[in-house]
């Protein structure tokens, strides 16, 4: 019977505890309460994928998840990917392969491809495209993003410099 609740969760490896309104989405929690504005909101009804984050290692729409549902869970966002100034191999591949232009869709793309490469380290182009069906990009035409995913897969497997 409550409209406010205290939640404790892990965000990018750090323990976080906050009192939130129960109707706050996880996306708004990350952006407004924690200042992690890398997670973007496009449609707020589940179709664009810009808000995709990792919850316990699996991608989820943060616009369709309530902050209170993340209580006790582990969340990873784009802010946790780089090691200081060193970009992750996937982030670097996006730059090298022109996987972004405006960058609005990029955090969601990175989250999706992170889960893909964790579950399937050597995906085919078709598999990459199937995974990306849940993330819209209005700039790149996707080719650069697909190339980045495939290049990152190679780097992570130590096949290419």
């Amino acid at each position, binding site marked *: *019977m*409550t*409209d406010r*609740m205290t939640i404790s969760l892990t965000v990018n490896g750090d323990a976080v505890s906050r009192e939130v309104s*129960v*109707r706050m*989405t996880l996306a*708004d929690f990350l952006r407004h309460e924690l200042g992690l504005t890398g997670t973007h909101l496009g*449609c*707020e*009804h*589940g179709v664009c*994928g810009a808000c*995709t984050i990792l*919850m316990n290692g*699996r*991608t*989820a*729409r943060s*616009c*369709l*998840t*309530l902050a*209170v*549902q993340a209580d006790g869970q582990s969340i990873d966002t784009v802010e946790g990917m780089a090691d200081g100034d060193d970009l992750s191999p996937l982030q670097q591949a996006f730059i090298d392969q022109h996987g972004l232009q405006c960058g609005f869709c990029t955090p969601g793309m990175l989250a*999706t491809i992170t*889960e*893909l490469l964790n579950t399937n380290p050597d995906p085919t182009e078709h598999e990459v495209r*199937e*995974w990306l*069906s*849940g993330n819209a990009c209005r700039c790149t035409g996707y080719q650069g993003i697909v190339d980045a995913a495939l290049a990152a897969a190679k780097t992570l497997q130590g096949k290419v410099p």
Partner: protein
Amino acid sequence: MKPPPFSYHRPDSVDEALGLLATLDDPKILAGGQSLMPMMNFRYVMPANLIDINRIDDLSRTENGGETLRIGAMVRQRDLEFSDLVKARCPLLHAALLNVGHVQTRNRGTIGGSLSHLDPAAELPAALMALDATLHVGSKRGTRDVAITDWSMGYMTPNLEMDEMLTAITIPLWPAGHGAGFVEFARRHGDFAMAGTAAMLALSPSGTIERVALAVTGVDIGPVRLHDAEAMLAGQTPSEALFADAAQTAGAVPGLDDVHASKAYRRKLAIVMTKRALAQALAQAQGGGDD
């Protein structure tokens, strides 16, 4: 595009959830949230009380009963997709799951949520119709079983009272060696189907059709079983011509007209999807089966 105010409840047990359903004003169950949250963000739905069933362990189990499979309502679509048991014993469900939305939505979305939301184009209700599934419903008043054929009461209206919830689904399994096919047509992979068909086929030792089940989705307001086609196929020797004839009956399903497709177009698609699903099921029954 934010959900309107509500009170939030997070029961730990089915009993507690049913108690809340019975006593709270204007309650709504929150499962995977992949359909409910968009509707709340759009303010199509504004429940006073949200009952989050995500932490009820009893609803998240899949049980192998030998000749049946019992799946808890809160089992996530992606967990079912990964289930070796489902892959081996119920290939139709596995094939249908791969067409439900995207990885990101399947990671959260549940089997019970899909059945309760009952989108006209949802894959799982049609697959479960071809499988003759039974749905287990609970409330403080008791429990009841609903045959999948009695589940849809109208447009996006499941056979559920306000104080009831879906707790599990039982699927009677077909013998090993049967074939399954699920084919749908959508503009993009992951979109809802404009028409799709679920097909189950078992052959006799002499190669004739011993048992067959067909259901279409996306054409009418709910899944539709193709009894006429099944009657034409039973006992016959499978052939392309026979499948084509039987599939024609899918063109008689009362169709929906909407922005995505006209009724006539959906019916045409249903015929083609049925032919393809039958061919897929046959190939699997004739030895593509790896179980």
